[in-house]
């Protein structure tokens, strides 16, 4: 034993040390172990702290408004800072409608793109396309908003909107005059912003579908599209739904680009050509202009509503994605 230890301690550059020194060396490092574990643990726990802190801070900031307006805050539609009357309904409505429009556009496009990237596209085209979509995610939302104002809205107004009005003008959705900045434009810009996340999450999900599924379909003589539809897409249904909900979470919180193109008018009208307002936009626009305490508290309450909605939506999305991950993992183990 002694012989075996001696060269080792020599290798560590401590030839003359008595054996007890080795044990002494081990002790501080055990302390280091504990300290490092606690340090990293504390850092990891900041996540919990952040959630609680955010909830508490928003509650604390809005408690005055909650006491004053109560439940009416959520169901009345007067937003009049001068008269100290605050109702958040137009903002909630605007957020939901613009997100819905965005989902209607982004979900089919996003899932089709993800299917193309994992199943249908030739191999050489996949990686460049993925990189491009990731770059789309990197465009700051202000830039997109700027582009929305100066390029997208004039184009939309002159061609697609005019066309929609000509053919569908009789429905309440596309009635009224076209200003430019409107709910529909807001929805479209949100769609552009959430497409990358929908594509990348759906792509991950489709890639996690076991190859056995595909092989079985091809073995039965399915064409490429049939294999995709029957073996892959329907298998991944739940996970794709999770991806959509995740996109919805992003859509609800999109701020800058939407603020720049949606028109910022708190009203509830059926026509999508009319300007609207969202929860996030009102925060961005009016937060620093809040002159009275109750105004600021009302805005804090809007933040609380937004936080609550996005937390719920994200929880739902994570739960859906989580179940997919665990079932596919257990299947892989089996």
């Amino acid at each position, binding site marked *: 034993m002694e012989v075996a230890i001696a060269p080792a301690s020599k290798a560590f550059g401590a030839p003359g040390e008595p054996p007890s020194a080795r044990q002494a060396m081990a002790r501080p490092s055990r302390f280091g172990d504990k300290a490092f574990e606690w340090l990293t643990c504390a850092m990891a726990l900041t996540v919990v702290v952040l959630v609680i802190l955010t909830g508490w801070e928003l509650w604390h900031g809005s408690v005055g408004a909650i006491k004053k307006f109560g439940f009416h805050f959520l169901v009345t539609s007067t937003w009049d800072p001068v008269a100290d009357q605050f109702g958040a309904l137009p903002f909630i409505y605007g957020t939901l409608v613009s997100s819905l429009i965005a989902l209607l556009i982004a979900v089919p496009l996003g899932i089709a793109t993800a299917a193309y990237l994992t199943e249908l596209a030739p191999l050489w085209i996949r990686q460049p396309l993925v990189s491009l979509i990731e770059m789309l995610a990197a465009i700051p939302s202000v830039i997109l908003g700027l582009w929305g104002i100066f390029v997208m809205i004039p184009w939309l107004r002159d061609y697609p909107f005019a066309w929609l009005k000509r053919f569908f003008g009789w429905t309440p959705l596309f009635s009224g005059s076209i200003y430019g900045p409107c709910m529909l434009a807001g929805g479209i810009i949100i769609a552009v912003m959430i497409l990358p996340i929908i594509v990348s999450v759906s792509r991950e999900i489709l890639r996690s579908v076991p190859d056995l599924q595909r092989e079985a379909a091809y073995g039965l003589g399915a064409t490429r599209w049939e294999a995709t539809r029957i073996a892959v897409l329907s298998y991944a249904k739940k996970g794709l739904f999770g991806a959509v909900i995740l996109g919805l979470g992003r859509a609800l919180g999109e701020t800058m680009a939407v603020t720049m193109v949606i028109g910022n008018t708190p009203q509830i009208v059926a026509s999508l050509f009319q300007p609207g307002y969202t929860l996030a936009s009102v925060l961005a626009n009016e937060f620093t202009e809040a002159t009275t305490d109750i105004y600021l508290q009302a805005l804090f309450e809007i933040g609380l509503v937004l936080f609550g909605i996005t*937390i719920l939506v994200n929880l739902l999305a994570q739960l859906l994605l989580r179940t997919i991950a665990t079932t596919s993992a257990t299947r892989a183990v089996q």
Partner: protein
Amino acid sequence: MHLERAHNHTWRKIKSALASGIAFVSAVLVITPLGLVFFYLVINGASSVNWDFFTKLPAPVGTVGGGMVNAIAGSLELLALAGAIGIPIGVLGGVYLAEYGSARLNSVLRFLADVLNGVPSITWGVVVYGLVVLRFKGFSAYAGGLALGLIMIPLILRTTEEVVLLVPNGYREAALALGVSRWKTIVHIVMKTASKGIITGILLALARVGGETAPLLSLLSAIVFGITVSASPSLRSHCRFLPMRSLPTTTGTARLGPARSCSSPEFSALMCL
């Protein structure tokens, strides 16, 4: 019978090709905005990007010339502050998730981090406003940096965890078998092996945060709004965040800047991958 089957088969093949075509068109539609935005930025911005753009202060509205140095400096300053908060917490927290902790605690933490990643950035602006600006009456560069740092934490946490988990167990076992203590194993072996991935994650988070405007709108303009402190005059000129500055200038000067500041870390990150 045979003929019918053959006909059916061609029809199925056509359908398959059609579906591929539709999927291809949708992929093209998805990346069209990227191309259009880049085109627009280059057309409008390229002419005004020169040395002055990066080194001079903005000229008064209506005059020609001037640069964005204050905005760029402000951006960098904020990113540094955000990094100082977000990087250590995110990286160490990610290491904890990957190396220590019980399965149950970790899944809860992971879950919360994912949920936090989905919280809109404007919410952070509001929270930090309540936390810092209202309480300490201003000094908003720190507030802005704090908000961005908080956004970065869950992002970095998750990427670090994923990368650290990729390090093969044999590395850890080899180090531990040599008598290296656990934390040294983690710092010198595991994190070093994963360092490329960790840095990529950090760069991606910085890139995302670098383009973030919403929380800053509420925090930085708080200075202008009147919650002034003694240091603010010099600070104010520094604190114009790049994308914010780009808003009022319709001359097209500032537009390429944010895109570039955001896409260059992105490029380097992609190269690291």
